[in-house]
């Protein structure tokens, strides 16, 4: 059986990589360039994203675009994406280097700038929307903890990015 394992590894890696390069992210496997119709009109209300549990975000990697599947939350005209254990994620590192992103929702592309949110007042409704949308639960109040976990503290280091419209020169 041990002899078969390298064949299995050799099988899964190139096949998934080929699919991802060809089609954008495939579930948890990152992809490259997202294709679709680019929407240039301003979006005043993102509530329609409640029907989309997953969206795709393309960031600018060092050599190639790097696109991932992620979740999103909407609060009025603002769209947000979270990242658990953010410091370990390639796409987050890309955003820190170059905040320009392209978001694909229902086959349409929205060009945006990702900005990390740390204000507890802004984070509160995002946390409540996350709980309602993805877990079907609610509380009197909630917020994401923006500060990193203390040493030895057993909790995720979660970052939230707001996806703002790009300026005309971006």
């Amino acid at each position, binding site marked *: 059986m041990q002899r078969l394992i390298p064949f*299995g590894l050799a099988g899964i890696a190139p096949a998934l990589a080929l699919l991802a390069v060809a089609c954008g992210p495939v579930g948890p496997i990152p992809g490259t360039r997202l294709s679709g119709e680019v929407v240039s009109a301003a979006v005043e209300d993102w509530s329609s994203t409640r029907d989309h549990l997953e969206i795709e975000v393309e960031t600018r990697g060092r050599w190639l675009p790097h696109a991932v599947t992620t979740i999103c939350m909407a609060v009025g005209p603002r769209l947000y994406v979270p990242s658990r254990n953010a410091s370990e994620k390639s796409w987050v590192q890309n955003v820190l280097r170059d905040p320009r992103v392209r978001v694909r929702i229902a086959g349409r592309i929205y060009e945006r700038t990702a900005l990390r949110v740390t204000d507890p007042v802004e984070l509160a409704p995002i946390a409540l929307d996350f709980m309602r949308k993805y*877990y079907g639960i609610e509380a009197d109040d909630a917020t994401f903890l923006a500060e990193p976990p203390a040493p030895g503290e057993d909790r995720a280091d979660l970052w939230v990015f707001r996806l703002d419209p790009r300026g005309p020169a971006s």
Partner: protein
Amino acid sequence: MRRRAWVAALVLLLVAGAVYARLLAGGPLGPVPGGWLRGEVVAQPVSDWSFARLARPLRVESRARLLPHSTDPWFIVHEGRLHLLLTGLLHGGLLERLDEDPRIRVEVDGKIYEQVAVRVEDPAEISRLVRPGLRKLFAIETVGEIRRTSAAGAGNLAVFRVENPRVAGAAP
């Protein structure tokens, strides 16, 4: 002709990858569910799961169907008891299987614990468990009681308590 050969090669590679993941990998491959978990089976009942608190990953295998299904679920250890926090969006396969057969095998640090997963239904208990779960998994601090909303969706949360088979009264 050449295109057909590429497609055939791709299909073959995917099949090989799927077979590897489900039969040979010895557990999930990242987010891709796997098959049988390997490890030394611990016969002693577990009275305190605190040792699993920092386990990364903690793996769970269900044998509800023909092929075993193993995954890395979200979990919390609360007051010494292990709980699984599952959502249809990410853990649909395991959720369906637990409803069919609650027997599971839990892997922590290469050791296997044969347990059963008992669904928690009491709203007060769910609130008590979800609060530390939200903090651990998503850095969310909540105020007040946690309630289910009326809207049902793919992401609806299910909480399972992991128990020794004898305690839960299930067949070993």
